Each structure stands twice: as structure tokens, then as C-alpha cells.
């Protein structure tokens, strides 16, 4: 079985039990949208009315492993999960590692579309050519680890790969995650709640087929070259040794590490939250890799003594340590690990979970709520026991947990007072723990992102100029390495434009965005070479970036149909109204003025309308997206 250059699409309707298959071999379409995230987005836009309510069973969820997933291309095992978010009510793309996507490929599936709603709790079982909907009544209520164990026992197959939800998804928590390979999260946007609404507990896959590439010799050469680049990239070994939290110390040092719900920008002693500490204090037991990744930045940790003895989990990542630790005013390593374990097994996004808890703690700080309102919990900053209890209460929708389970935007509306002012969200998505008031490419990227304010559509880390490679990249994008400083508004639009295109293209290929946007050892030429060798469709670096731009534009069109325009390209209020405490530069705020200026430049680079921030007819035609021109030939 050879999957490239073609897309094997399997669609499942949980309402009718119908399974259909389609083979897409149109080389023009494949070259234009690459595959994975790109094809899925195009297909979604063509077949689904954006107005279809996310809670409507007909609203689909799409699993799209990368074009290269299943091959030995380094760090190519990632899968995009695409849906209309039940929380933000906008287009949403998440992306997850682990081994689930590769199993889909070995089962002969490049794209899995699930819609409808099963009558009772069910799971989807895919074994090579066989696709069946099975009863999951016995799995309902089980956590993610139990679910994996029970399905493996039921099938007598320890190798079956699951993407599943925990109790949080069943309870439709707004930020319930989908957990792949147990500890990898398609975390953001409420994909878990969407699955819960479909009565879909899990998708279980085993595949025994082949993945083949069109030009094996050429492919081997490109892979060999990338290994060499990887070994020379300065950031790879630190990431491998200390995980994503390797970034916490330097971020804290430049006062850009959000503490206490973005009220402060650093901790006096941040060391217990760092990757080096996880190693030195003995929490780290193993470095873990996603499928086909030689870097292995994921962690497996255990807590062997103290209050949280017996805790074990994948993680904690940078964002988790920031969201459930520093943001809650805590640097209790074991406490964060415990909260992380619970999020993983209940199926909760750690970023939004932490964001909601921090917001509640600030509500208490400002007298909008009391410990008594929270059932007697001590809501003072830094209490890790409280954080852990709140994680459980959110997953189970108990007490104040039920309020938080709707996400911070909705919780602030219900709480009232001034609490919306410190609800650090925009467009319904809690901001990831990035201090955008000290990083203006991030600020622009977060404001214009189709999904809302986080780093997982565009990761312009290079603007900090933290490595030789980062400075060189900024030099290449802007013409001068001097722009590799995050306090400038100049050239941020150029930086964001480059990063959003390559991020989208990386997702299409299944390549980890760390490789293309953080450690910078895979560039657009490498992506083009990998794609050409794998599929036999020869494309160049420019084609790769243009495909990325098409995807960004399509996502924009989806949100445009829902009425979102320039006015909605915003950041959380706090970051636009309050100056960052302890910043190392002046004007440490995301002022409307500076954001407006950057947005003007950004829309201009897209040839979008400056006033509305929307794609123009010319910009659509230039990208070959004529079918989406209003009044054009949209099928």
C-alpha cells in the first residue's frame, strides 16, 4: 500500500453508522494544499457551513496526520485535529504528537472525518480495512489511563493506539482535551467536549500496512541531511536533555514569565519549575519521543516521596509548569506534576485549566469571591493543594468547578464585578502563558490567529534572538539581524507572516513546529525537499510557504463567514490596558495603537483589506482560491 501522492479519506457518521471511503488523487489539489491540515481545512470549508453550530451533531471533527507521518522523516509523527470549537465558536486547529497518527497511516488512512452522534457511548475501532463502531458503555466514566488499559485488554492488543477523552470530555468541560497515546494532548479548543457530545469515547487504531515514499533514494538523502542539521543546531540537545521547560529560566530572567495571572512577570526563585531541576531532583525518569522523533523532548516523571508520592505522568511541559505552577503563584514541583497527571487522565487542557484557576484566585484576591464561595477552599496564591482540588472539581463539574468548566470568558460573565478585566482571554480562548507585552511578534500573532491568543498557530520565538539560528532567521526575514529583539513593533508583521506560513506547512507534513520555528533545523526548503521526495510531486520552498498562506487565508474565510473582522483581532484586555510589572523595556503593554499599526502592516502583506482585515478578491485569486471569491464559483 502506498499512500502518497494520494489522500485516503475515511468518513464515519456516528448517527447512521455509515462508513464511506474516498481516494483523492488530484495532483493539483494535493500540491496546492499539501495534505494533512491543508487538505482537511480546504475540504472542511467546501463541505461544511461555518454557521453550523459546533454542538450540532453534524459538525465534524477531522483527524489529519501529516503527509510524512509514518515515515522516518525526523519529527514527522504529528496529527492535526480540526473542528469548529464548541467554546470559541470559531475555526479551530489543534495538533498532537504521540503515535496515534502513525497508526492511522499504517491502517491506510490519511484523513479521518467523524460526524454525527452515537445513540450511546461508543468507540470507533479501526483495524486496517475494518472500521466499526463499538459499544463503550463500560468505558464511560473511565479516566484516560483506564480507558487505554481496558481497550487494550478487550482487543488483546497492547499496541492499539487511542485518541480518547476522559471524564472532562464526557462532562463537556469547555477545555476538555483529546488525549493521544495517553500523555499527548490535542489540548486546546474543546475537542474533548466535542467528542463527548458525539458520545465518542475513543478512536482506537491498529494498522499493519506500509507507508511508502515515491523516491526512496532521494528521501534517504534529505533525511540524512536533516540529521546533520539537527546535530549542528544549538537548541536541539538542551531541548532533548531538559524538555520544553528548558525555556523557563531564560524567560524568567528577562521578566517575561507570567506569574499570578499575568500580574507579575517573574519569580524570585523559579528553579523548581525548570527542566534542569526535573532532572537533578530525580523527577525525570525517561525522555520520551513522539513517533519518529530523534529529539525526544517529552518527559516521563514520577514523584517518589512526600505528599504526592505515587504520582506518575507524561510531562510537565513549559506551559503546564507556567499555567498550573507560576501562574497560580506556586513553584511546588511535585504539586504541578500531580495537577498535570490529573489533567492528563481526566482529559483537560493544562493551559486553560491553569488560566481558570488563576483567574479564580485573583477574584479572591480582589474580593470578588471568597473561600466560602469555593466550598471552603483556600484560594490564596501558591496553594498547590487547592490547584489540585480545583482540577478535580472542574473535570467533575463540582461546586465552583462547574463555573470554571465553561472557560474563563463565560465564568467572568457569571461572576460579574470587574472580573472580566483579569480574565486573560480573547475570542473565548485563554491566552497561553506567553507575556505578549514583552514580545510584540507574539502579540500580533496572537491577535490575528484564527484560533485565538496562543502560540500554537504561530510561534515567532526567533524574535527574542536567543540563538545564532534565531538571529540568522530574523536577518533573513527582515533584512537585518538587529530586528531580533522582541520589544520592537517594526518588522513584526514580516516575522509573523513567515512563521504562520511555515507553521501551517509543518502541520500539513506532520513535522513538529519545534523543528521549524524553535530550534530551527528544518526550513521551508527542507520541507519542500521532503515533500517532493515523499510524494513525487516536485515543489519548491516558495510553494511550501504559499500553501501555508492558503491555509491561513482559508481559516480567515471560515471566521469571516461568522462575522469576525479586524475588530476581533484583539488581545486579552489586561494585556492591552495594564502595563507589565517589572518589564525590562518601556511601554510594556499591548496598546491598541501599536497593535493597530502592526495589524495594518500584517494585512498589507496578505493583500487583505486594511479596514476589515478580510481577504480581498485579488488576494484570493493570487493564491488560486478563486472558488472562494464572493459571488464566484463556490461549489
Amino acid at each position, binding site marked *: 500500500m502506498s499512500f502518497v501522492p494520494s489522500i485516503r479519506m475515511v468518513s464515519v457518521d456516528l448517527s447512521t453508522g455509515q462508513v464511506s471511503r474516498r481516494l483523492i488523487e488530484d495532483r493539483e489539489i494535493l500540491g496546492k494544499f499539501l495534505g494533512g491540515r491543508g487538505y482537511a481545512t480546504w475540504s472542511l470549508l467546501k463541505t461544511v457551513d461555518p454557521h453550523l453550530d459546533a454542538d450540532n451533531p453534524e459538525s465534524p471533527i477531522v483527524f489529519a496526520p501529516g503527509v510524512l507521518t509514518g515515515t*522516518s522523516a525526523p519529527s514527522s509523527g504529528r496529527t492535526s485535529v480540526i473542528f469548529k470549537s464548541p467554546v470559541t465558536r470559531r475555526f479551530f486547529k489543534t495538533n498532537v504528537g504521540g503515535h496515534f497518527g502513525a497508526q492511522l497511516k499504517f491502517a491506510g488512512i490519511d484523513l479521518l472525518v467523524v460526524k454525527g452522534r452515537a445513540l450511546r457511548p461508543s468507540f470507533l475501532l479501526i483495524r486496517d480495512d475494518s472500521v466499526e463502531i463499538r459499544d463503550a458503555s463500560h468505558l464511560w466514566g473511565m479516566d484516560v489511563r483506564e480507558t487505554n488499559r481496558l481497550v487494550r485488554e478487550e482487543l488483546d492488543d497492547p499496541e492499539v493506539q487511542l485518541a480518547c477523552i476522559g471524564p472532562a470530555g464526557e462532562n463537556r468541560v469547555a477545555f476538555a482535551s483529546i488525549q493521544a497515546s495517553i500523555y499527548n494532548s490535542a489540548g486546546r479548543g474543546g475537542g474533548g467536549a466535542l467528542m463527548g457530545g458525539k458520545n465518542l469515547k475513543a478512536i482506537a487504531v491498529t494498522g*499493519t500496512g506500509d*507507508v*511508502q515514499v515515491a523516491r526512496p533514494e532521494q528521501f534517504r538523502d534529505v533525511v540524512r541531511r536533516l540529521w546533520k542539521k539537527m546535530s549542528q543546531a544549538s537548541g536541539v540537545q538542551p531541548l532533548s536533555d531538559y524538555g520544553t521547560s528548558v525555556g523557563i529560566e531564560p524567560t524568567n530572567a528577562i521578566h517575561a514569565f507570567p506569574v499570578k495571572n499575568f500580574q507579575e512577570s517573574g519569580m524570585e526563585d523559579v528553579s523548581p519549575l525548570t527542566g534542569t531541576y526535573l532532572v537533578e531532583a530525580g523527577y525525570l525518569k525517561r525522555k520520551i519521543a513522539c513517533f519518529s522523533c*530523534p529529539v525526544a523532548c517529552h518527559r516521563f516523571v514520577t514523584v517518589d516521596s512526600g505528599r504526592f508520592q505515587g504520582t506518575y505522568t507524561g510531562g510537565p511541559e513549559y506551559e503546564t509548569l507556567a499555567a498550573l505552577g507560576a501562574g497560580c503563584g506556586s513553584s511546588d514541583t511535585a504539586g504541578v506534576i500531580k495537577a498535570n497527571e490529573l489533567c492528563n487522565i481526566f482529559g483537560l487542557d493544562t493551559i486553560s485549566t491553569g488560566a481558570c484557576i488563576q483567574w479564580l484566585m485573583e477574584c479572591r484576591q480582589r474580593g470578588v469571591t471568597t473561600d466560602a464561595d469555593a466550598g471552603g477552599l483556600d484560594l490564596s496564591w501558591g496553594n498547590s493543594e487547592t490547584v489540585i482540588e480545583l482540577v478535580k472539581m472542574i473535570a467533575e463539574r463540582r461546586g465552583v468547578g462547574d463555573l470554571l468548566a465553561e472557560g474563563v470568558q463565560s465564568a467572568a460573565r457569571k461572576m460579574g464585578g470587574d472580573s472580566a478585566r483579569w480574565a486573560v482571554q480573547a475570542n473565548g480562548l485563554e491566552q497561553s502563558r506567553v507575556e505578549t507585552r514583552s514580545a510584540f511578534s507574539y502579540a500580533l500573532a496572537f491577535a490575528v490567529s484564527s484560533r485565538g491568543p496562543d502560540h500554537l498557530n504561530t510561534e515567532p520565538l526567533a524574535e527574542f534572538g536567543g540563538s545564532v539560528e534565531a538571529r540568522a532567521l530574523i536577518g533573513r526575514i527582515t533584512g537585518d539581524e538587529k530586528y531580533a529583539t522582541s520589544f520592537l513593533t517594526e518588522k513584526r508583521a514580516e516575522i509573523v507572516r513567515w512563521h504562520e506560513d511555515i507553521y501551517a506547512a509543518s502541520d500539513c507534513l506532520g513535522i513538529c513546529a519545534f523543528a521549524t520555528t524553535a530550534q530551527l533545523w528544518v526550513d521551508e526548503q527542507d520541507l519542500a525537499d521532503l515533500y517532493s521526495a515523499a510524494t513525487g510531486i516536485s515543489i519548491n520552498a516558495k510553494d511550501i510557504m504559499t500553501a501555508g498562506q492558503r491555509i491561513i487565508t482559508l481559516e480567515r474565510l471560515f471566521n469571516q463567514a461568522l462575522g469576525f473582522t479586524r475588530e476581533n483581532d484583539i488581545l486579552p484586555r489586561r494585556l492591552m490596558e495594564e502595563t507589565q510589572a517589572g518589564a525590562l523595556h518601556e511601554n510594556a503593554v499591548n496598546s491598541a495603537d501599536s497593535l493597530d499599526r502592526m495589524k495594518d502592516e500584517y494585512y498589507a502583506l496578505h493583500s487583505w483589506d486594511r479596514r476589515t482585515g478580510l481577504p480581498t478578491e485579488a488576494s484570493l485569486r493570487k493564491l488560486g482560491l478563486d472558488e472562494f471569491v464572493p459571488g464566484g464559483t463556490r461549489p
Partner: protein
Amino acid sequence: MKVFLMDPEKCTGCRLCELSCSLTRYGAFNRELSAIRVESNEDLSLHVPVSCMQCREAPCIRACVAGALRRDSGTGAVLVDADRCILCKACAVACPFGCVSLVRWKDAPRIGICDLCSGEPQCVSVCRSQAIAYVDEGKVNRKKRMEDYERVFHNRSTES
């Protein structure tokens, strides 16, 4: 003679060994075709690479009734003569490590045993975490001894 030395503590579960094996032998990516396999307990994130241990008194060779298995004098790898093999699977049953398997390639069954890639095992070259090493037979124990020594020494120094 060189042999494999596996260290599960270092294995990250990336499966690049399996992918490079199947690519080298069959030109396709397929874990089922790989002569090296990584067994995993995902819950505990434990991954154990397993491949032919190149037993001196190889049970697989002894079990073969067709005279299809022989040892390569250079690398020590057990090689399969597909023309003689009658696919009885006695070798697979005999292997104490489960490293002989019946695989299916282009719809034809065949016996798969690690052939050490003629002395340059590809799985080793893609194992960045060095969970799979290919070392001189005589050095296997020394490496283990050194690691134990370092572990003990490290514990002492952190205790004091």
C-alpha cells in the same frame, strides 16, 4: 565479533529503529516487517527494544529442519536461505526472545531475522538516545560494569 547491547532505560520509543529496518530490508515503512521491535508500556512510558541476540548456540538454527538457516562467518548474523526455507516456523517457536517472525511482504510470507545489515546495523545509526549499541563482544560486560560503577559512584557523591 560485534553484538547488540540494548538499554531500555534510554529508549524513548520513537520507533526510528523499526522504520529504518523495514526501509533497509523492504524499501517501505512498516513496523510489522522490522526485525527489531520496540515493546511498550505506554502507561509507564516504558519502551524495550528487542532484536536477535546472536546466540552462539542458536536455537533457531538447530530447530531448522530444512537447513535454511546458517551463520554468516563475518558478522555472525543468522541468514535465511529463502529457497530452502519451508516456512514451518520452527525457528520462530525456538527463539527464546521472540525475535524470529513470519512476515508478509508483497503477499508472500517469509522468515524475518535480523541480518545485522552486513555489519552496519541501520537501527543503531538512527538511535539518537543510544538505547541500541553495537559493540565488540568482549566489551559488553565492561560497559555494563562501568555503568554500574558510575551509578554507585554517583549515589555516593550525592549522599555525602
